[in-house]
């Protein structure tokens, strides 16, 4: 197992190298210039070139790539053009809201998704199933910004239960943080529950049609025990996969929700860094996101091994 883990983690390296290269290429191919963005539309070409030189942007592209890789191997992601902070620091400062939002959203998405999936599977064909299915399709179809605004109006304006925007960091009090993350988590939770619900439903249906389920019921086990202990446990693998995917999506930043609720997370950071052509920061975020996906994938695979004794690595 340990060897397996080490191999998987080492596999990160080529992934990051490739992601870094592709990111660098894309960023430098698109038109746009951070110096122009800083100085504004009325700057003269002289001023712009001067600032570009200072920012090291006038070096030939292959040299800049080589310097970037060199720094990367030393663990130095460089400095953000706009905030002058080290890229890693800039990213870490934004992790708190994104991580918390991810965790809460995932909990809500799983709770709604798995429950409704199980219920839909059990009551398959009935109107309960139809409602659950409709809600899933609704969740898959609605844009997150629409749901955000509806929730804001209902729970932020009509009744003043939650603030309409803004983020309170943990150091100001956990309850305050919770209040500012409630509506965004509900939005992302509902939207992401749809996929989990569908997968749960179909996975449960498949498992419940197995013979061993009939045997368990015939043996006299309670309905609840059969569903939760036997059926769900066997149905869980695809659900875990989907949860993993959802986790990856959430961490890379729910840009729309972060923008609407003014949450200073990774998503907003990624968007502003691209719009401002902040090359080092954008590349840093790309690497960060790639790492997260790889690690989440690994986590899901390990969970597989724990949940299904038939799966062994080594």
């Amino acid at each position: 197992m340990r060897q397996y883990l080490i191999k998987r983690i080492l596999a990160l390296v080529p992934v990051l190298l490739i992601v870094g290269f592709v990111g660098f290429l894309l960023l430098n191919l698109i038109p746009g210039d951070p110096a122009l963005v800083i100085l504004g539309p009325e700057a003269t070409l002289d001023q712009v070139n001067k600032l570009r030189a200072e920012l090291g942007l006038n070096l030939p592209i292959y040299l800049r790539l080589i310097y970037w890789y060199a720094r990367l191997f030393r663990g130095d992601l460089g400095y953000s053009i706009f905030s002058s902070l080290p890229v890693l620091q800039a990213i870490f400062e934004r992790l708190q809201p994104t991580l918390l939002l991810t965790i809460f959203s995932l909990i809500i998405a799983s709770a709604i998704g798995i429950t409704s999936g199980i219920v839909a599977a059990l009551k398959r064909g009935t109107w309960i199933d139809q409602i659950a299915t409709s809600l899933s399709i609704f969740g898959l179809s609605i844009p997150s910004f629409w749901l955000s605004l509806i929730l804001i109006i209902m729970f932020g304006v009509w009744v003043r239960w939650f603030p309409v925007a803004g983020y309170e960091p943990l150091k100001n009090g956990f309850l305050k943080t919770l209040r500012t993350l409630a509506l965004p988590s509900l939005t992302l939770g509902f939207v992401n529950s749809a996929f989990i619900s569908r997968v749960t439903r179909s996975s449960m249906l498949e498992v419940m049609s197995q013979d061993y389920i009939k045997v368990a019921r015939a043996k006299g086990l309670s309905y609840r025990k059969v569903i939760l202990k036997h059926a769900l446990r066997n149905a869980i693998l695809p659900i875990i996969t989907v949860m993993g995917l959802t986790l990856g999506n959430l961490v890379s930043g729910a840009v729309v929700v972060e923008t609407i609720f003014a949450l200073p997370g990774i998503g907003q950071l990624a968007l502003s860094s691209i719009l401002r052509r902040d090359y080092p920061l954008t590349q840093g975020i790309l690497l960060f996101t790639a790492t997260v996906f790889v690690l989440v994938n690994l986590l899901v695979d390990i969970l597989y091994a724990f949940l299904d004794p038939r799966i062994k690595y080594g």
Partner: protein
Amino acid sequence: MHLKSKIKKIVLSVLIVILITLMAGGNAGVKGIFKFPDTVGHRFELEIIKLSNKGIIEGYPDGTFRPDAMVKRSEIATLLVKVKNLTLYKPSISTFKDVATNNWAYGYIMAIQKDGLMVGYPDGTFKPDGNVTRAELAVVLGRLKGLENEASKITSPTITAYDINKVPSWSMPYVDLGFQPQYNFLTGRAGYIAPQENATRGEVAYGLYVATNPPKFGGTLKVAVLTNPVTLDTQITTATIPSTFGMHIFETLFTYDENGEPIPLLVDSYNVSNDAKTYTFKLRKGIKFHNGKEMTADDVVASISRWGRLSTNGKGLFSEVESWTALDNYTTQMILKNPINVPAYLASDLMVASIYPKEVIDKVGDTPLKFTPEEIIGTGPYKFIEFVSDVHIKLIRFEDYSTRNDISNGLGGRRTVYPDVLLIDIVPDRTVRALGVITNLYDFAEDISSDLYGKLRIDPNIMTSTVLKAWDSSIFNKKQGVFTSQKMRQAFLAALDMEACMKGAFGNPDFWDLGPHLMGKSTPYYTDAGKEWYNQKNIERAKSLLAEAGYKGEPIRWLVSSDYPDRYNIALIAKDQLEKAGFVIVLKVVDWPTLLKTRNDPTLWDIFDTDFRYFSDPVFILAIGPSYPGWYVSPTMAQYLSQMRSETDIETRKIIWEKAQTLFWEDVPAIKYGDSMILYIFRTTLEGYRKYSISYYFFFNMWKES
């Protein structure tokens, strides 16, 4: 089973429809706040409404308020009685020769006489039908506040104004008190106290309101803005948010008064030599930077020199500067090659000529200032604490701020900061900014959608302010391509229906305006010169001009940014009109940074779209200069601009500008479609807001009611 599930389906559908309808319904039926149509946008609108809501002041039967009408002494007597809740007093014998016991205002006049608020004239008259003067208003308000004791201690004025010597001695102490920040119940008229002028209904309403609801120091003012500032180095940026808040942190040698003309700010006095080529500036003494250091001539010389190297109009000015030096610790001198109106440049709101400490300039050189309190150091009334990207900019009141003593006059004069903290939150979503003000999360928000205007106007807790922002424009490439021909440009102009473009892009007519003017109505330079060329809507004429120009159907590359939906929509509407005249148009839709990069290359485009903020001076208009993309080279226009640069007399400048604007519409270096407005909203608990001659908002002389 079948029927049961059918019923369930119906019930469910009905529930969903009800839910959606509930969401669609707003809060109609809320009491309206904009009662008086003739006070919308008036300087004292908020105080008038508040005083009216308290039942103290009323409008006329026709629904108007007439805020600029005069106030009779008998009328102010009734107002005072209501404010102080006095009982009417009707003794059998009148104290005043000219107020009979059956006069409609008898009870009121006698009541305030008894209370000591107004005592009449030495000749025993009251003059009930005379108008209240501003000096009289000051005294009445001072007495209303019970400031007799304070007044008796004032032997000479602490304030100053252009006409301070005209203030009659009997009113002087109360006038002085009225302009002090803790009372603030008097307002100036473009730097004049105008004591013998009649007070207006608006001024009286403001005075009565603030006298009974005095300003409070303290608290946090929360403002919601659209986007992160890319820098706070005001000398190099033209973006709105950095310039707006930069002007809270930094100050300039000159700034704008109520009329939009430059007046001294950090300068104490200055003189100009007879040949208008030497300016000697005497700086105010004792002005502190946020780091405690005193501002001296060295800081000023270094700052203006840097601004002269890095900013467009700074370079424009310094191309004529022979020398710029410090003569002593508080005196600087600029010697010019040719006469130039220097104060107009130094007051500029485009790439602001802010004063930084010399040590900071020595340290950063020409690199933009970073977002740290070690580099963002100014002399302004607010001090920079921190900028957290996508979260907020935090400013606090600068306790050692050296304010001017002259009465507040536009951006000049006394600047008082009432709140302890100014927190500028970055809230990118327009709707959420508005909802934030509605739920009292923010006190003030900029750039709200005009779709919400109707709903916000009737919310009793919210004030709206529609401010002129910019004019939407298409710039022609005059260096290369089809639009090097003037006829082609004229043909383009002839085909356009400006009203259709603006209406289609902006919708609500409160938020856009038409007109050939390139300078705003609040500036002295507003003119409609060239109106015969503006909005011709003449497809036939366009066709014939195209034929004269020899247009052969070459595709016209039109660069437009999808980041700005309004401008994009204008392009779509205009394209349709132009194609009817025979133009062949190819729209190239890109994001804003790409547009900025692409427009520097004359081989890549024929037209690009942008908007131009309204500035304070015609010499700052970019579209008519030779170096701005579009590359307008016109000896006549250059001559007009050069004349305007050197001329200091306003009337002469206006005449030159009229000719220049006419030339703009004849030569068409660029198209102006129309004006667009921006909507600000704020809580009614925020006092002191007013519009300035430049399209920004400023949080000094503003306070929060508790």
